[in-house]
């Protein structure tokens, strides 16, 4: 016997959580594009998507976040800090790759300076992940040693029932248990079997790729130019990525007053490394693509012992020229044989 949340009870759950002061967030459609956003009722949720177009990271690391307001006069400099919005949130219907992506970035945002914008939101969010029963040709979690029902980063894991009428509830953390305590009477004990999770074929050998990337001889390999020849240098792969975390701090306003903001930035852009002198140490797109791959599968694991990729496949799915991590690592797997 396991705890079961039936689909027809979901709306009551949402209502219960909302009346307890929680912001309920989930996958929704917004003007022909799918995102995670706040909802008022369960009917707004789109739980049939393989994956939202945009990743979960923006709920913790928004594309543009105000940090402080400054005003400079002859006599003094005044600053007012902005804090992230506070209050408990429940993210219902995350995918395992998205939730894992958050867990991958946790050590990054806390290794020396603890980024309060990230951690305040992390500490106040309950992540309810639904195991995947379908995937598309871009999904690649299994190549990253994750799976459609990974629990990494999640507080609750829901397994869809075979009859599609609800989910088996697995409580993973105290935070998850706490959130589900308030809806305990809406859950039922049952023995309905869970549907099988989708089989995502393994597309490359991440370990072999890591070895190849670590070899200094391969840094200047012709491979980088060939694989990225068609890259147009936009930032869509990095901005849709659940683990890409680079940002730029910009003062928006004038010299005497304005707002300091933390904005997403992307290693795909030439401007990312441009020096004031005009010199650019990463002067070609191939050097930028190499950096992205090296960072995710060599430098980041070197520091935090995990690949900075959770296998969501958004990079390939949305790439205007059909590039992406999958192809690059497949090619590296071949080279490393």
């Amino acid at each position, binding site marked *: 016997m396991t705890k079961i949340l039936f689909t027809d009870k979901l709306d009551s759950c949402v209502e219960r959580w909302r009346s307890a002061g929680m912001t309920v967030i989930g996958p929704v459609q917004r003007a022909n594009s799918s995102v995670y956003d706040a909802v008022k009722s369960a009917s707004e949720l789109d739980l049939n998507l393989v994956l939202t177009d945009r990743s979960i990271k923006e709920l913790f690391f928004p594309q543009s976040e105000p940090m402080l307001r400054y005003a400079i006069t002859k006599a003094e400099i005044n600053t007012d800090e902005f804090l992230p919005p506070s209050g408990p949130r429940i993210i219902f219907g995350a995918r395992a790759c998205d939730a894992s992506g958050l867990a991958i970035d946790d050590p990054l945002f806390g290794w020396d300076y603890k980024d309060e914008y990230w951690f305040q939101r992390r500490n106040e969010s309950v992540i309810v992940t639904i195991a995947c029963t379908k995937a598309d040709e871009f999904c690649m979690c299994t190549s990253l040693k994750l799976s459609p029902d990974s629990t990494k980063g999640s507080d609750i894991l829901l397994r869809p029932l075979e009859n599609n009428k609800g989910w088996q509830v697995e409580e993973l953390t105290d935070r998850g248990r706490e959130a589900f305590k308030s809806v305990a009477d809406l859950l039922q004990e049952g023995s309905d079997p869970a549907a099988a999770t989708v089989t995502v074929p393994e597309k490359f050998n991440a370990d072999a790729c890591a070895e190849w990337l670590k070899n200094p001889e391969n840094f200047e390999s012709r491979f980088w130019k060939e694989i990225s020849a068609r890259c147009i240098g936009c930032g869509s792969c990095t901005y849709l990525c659940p683990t890409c975390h680079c940002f730029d701090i*910009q003062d928006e306003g004038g010299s005497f007053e304005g707002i300091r903001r933390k904005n997403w930035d992307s290693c795909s852009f030439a401007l990312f490394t441009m020096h004031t002198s005009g010199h650019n140490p990463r002067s070609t797109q191939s050097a930028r693509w190499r950096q992205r791959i090296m960072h995710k599968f060599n430098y980041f694991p070197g520091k935090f012992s995990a690949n900075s990729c959770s296998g969501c496949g958004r990079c390939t799915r949305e790439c205007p020229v059909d590039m*992406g991590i999958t192809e690059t690592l497949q090619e590296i797997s071949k080279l490393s044989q």
Partner: protein
Amino acid sequence: MSIEQQYRTRAKELLSAGEVKMVIGYGAGTTAERRRPIFITSPDETERLVLDSACIANLSGYLVTEGLLSDEKRVAVFLRPEGIRALNVLAAEAQLDPLQVVIIGFDLPKGELKSLQGSSVDDFTDLLGALKESTPDVDGRELLEKIEKMSPEERFAFWQEEFSKCIKCYACRQACPMCYCRRCIVDSNQPQWVNTSSHTLGNFEWNIVRAFHLSGRCVECGNCDRACPVNIPLRLINRKMAQEVLDSFNHFAGTSKTQEPVLASFKKDDSETFIL
């Protein structure tokens, strides 16, 4: 012989004879429906070329890749009529020498692959002239008409919702053959004309600037619209502006390699009904 096979042979001949150093074409993509740009430099590789109704992307932007044409050698490229127009605009704006470009022309009227005769931009003058007179086939015409009928407040609200999704990945800019500026206006910060943050205000500004810089230059190839990862209907703005320059100045971008850029020229009797 299929058009695809004919064109593979042609690419092979061009490379073997040393007439071109590279062929820019389409290859198989990640999925059965996808095609990706490929760059062929050896005659043996021409079998990788694919040509079918999925070859929609405009490849002309790769021609202005830094250093590609600076050795004065020639490059062949697969282009649809929009791509040929883009090539003309690039030539008219002195970004490349069109004589260095060998066109492998094709079209996809109603998804049906058709070959186009000719290899140099001038060979397509009549075709492009006829295009100017025809009614363009736009995906979303109904929506465009709906937007035009809205009140300004409704139009603002419509675009506010669309632009609020923008993440400023600049895929629209990077995918556009006309966006070749070495330093884009949003990357310049002295002065910083528009907000680079991607809050809705900054997104509004960016999208207006982008559309304005493309007015009278855009050939409506649709690269930006397809590139947008959050599906902002950029084609509608481009369509609107193309119609505007056609109606006001009888200008259709990219009809010849010496066409005067519409916003860098004027007529003394240009309409001015709105000036007090």
